[in-house]
């Protein structure tokens, strides 16, 4: 059996397994750290910066989802600085694209919306970008609305790591980054897509949805996908 390491999360001493990340240890011990791009069962990429935590002896904030624990690590999961940082990160996500919750299939079930509400984001303090973005409706069963995409890459990783099809990628840089299916082919023409719908279930926002649902009607089950991975690993 692997030797355990001792870490401190918000003052509490916890025994963790080397190789686990701060976020994994926190979750296993009912300590809340907000996360958006992280999904259990997928590789962690550290894309959204919502899980930032303070680690003693380290001057900058570290993402909990990609930072492995080590002996003696002391983590603070919540502080005025972290709250302020997380609010800024959320507001910038809203400012970057066009989120119109009032007409969104995922309103009321959206992870981004819920995080904003939980963090007391009453408004966005930055100028909105209002980019002109497309909606890909070419797939017979699913739809991708770039206006609501936060580039978390959960769909990319789910399709590549769980379904094994790797239909999605993120192309471009910075503010010009876009989710693309099969080298810019419309989703409906992507020959590698098995139409399994896993990406849709993994998507934390209303960017991906099944066709046929109205405002507030689309609920998702990412936990089923996480379970798939843990069942496979258990074999």
């Amino acid at each position, binding site marked *: 059996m692997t030797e355990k390491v001792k870490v401190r999360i918000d003052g509490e001493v916890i025994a963790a397994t080397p190789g686990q990340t701060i976020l994994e240890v926190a979750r296993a011990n009912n300590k809340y750290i907000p996360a958006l791009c992280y999904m259990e069962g997928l590789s962690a990429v550290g894309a959204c910066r919502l899980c930032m935590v303070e680690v003693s002896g380290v001057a900058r904030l570290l993402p909990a989802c990609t930072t492995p624990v080590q002996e003696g690590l002391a983590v603070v999961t919540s502080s005025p600085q972290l709250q302020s940082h997380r609010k800024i990160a959320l507001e910038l996500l*809203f400012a970057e694209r*066009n*989120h*119109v*919750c*009032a*007409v*969104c299939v995922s*309103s*009321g079930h959206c992870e981004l*919306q819920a995080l*904003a*509400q939980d963090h*007391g*984001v*009453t*408004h*966005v*303090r930055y*100028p*909105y970008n*209002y*980019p*002109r*973005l497309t909606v890909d409706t070419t797939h017979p069963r699913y739809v991708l609305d770039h206006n609501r995409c936060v580039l978390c890459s959960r769909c990319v990783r789910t399709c590549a790591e769980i379904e094994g099809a790797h239909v999605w990628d993120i192309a471009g840089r910075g503010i010009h980054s876009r989710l693309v299916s099969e080298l810019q082919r419309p989703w409906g023409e992507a020959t590698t897509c098995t139409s399994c719908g896993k990406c849709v279930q993994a998507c934390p926002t209303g960017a991906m949805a099944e066709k046929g649902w109205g405002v*507030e009607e689309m609920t998702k089950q990412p936990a089923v996908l996480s379970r798939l991975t843990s069942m496979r690993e258990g074999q």
Partner: protein
Amino acid sequence: MDKRKIGTCWLDGCSGCHMSLLDMDEGIVALLEKADIVFGPLVDAQEWPEGVDVAVIEGAVSSQDDLKLAQTARARSHVVVALGDCAVTGNVPSMRNGIPSRKLLERIYVEGATERPGVPTDGVPALLKRVEPLQAAIKVDVHVPGCPPKPNSILFVLSELLEGREPDLGSKLRFG
């Protein structure tokens, strides 16, 4: 104590927030014991009066008239509340922002018209290039998102403000 003054107005929105304001049942009676509504679509006044305690503004800033009214309300009121998603985020009205307003008007009033095509100019305010949330045009003190915000959230915010407290929506905070 003198009665306080509330002014309301409705910029580029659907009136849903005002409906929600009216939908607070007996709450409105308690509210009107403390304050009078001195301006807005619910009353007759022609001009936003001076010395308003709380301005409640629904809708995004979309036209020259919206901008003027928002500025007047700001200048003549102590506290400004942005009421609803349109005022707070731009919401549905801002969906036109990717399209130049000339093109938009022509699409609707020329290409889309079955009779008398032509972009109307008389008696209608000019559209701004871009729809903006209220805080992009004027200083906003309190944001109450929601489409529309729940009547009890509006009642809570107005009651707190009339008591001189800063309202904290807490778990009542809701977009959409």
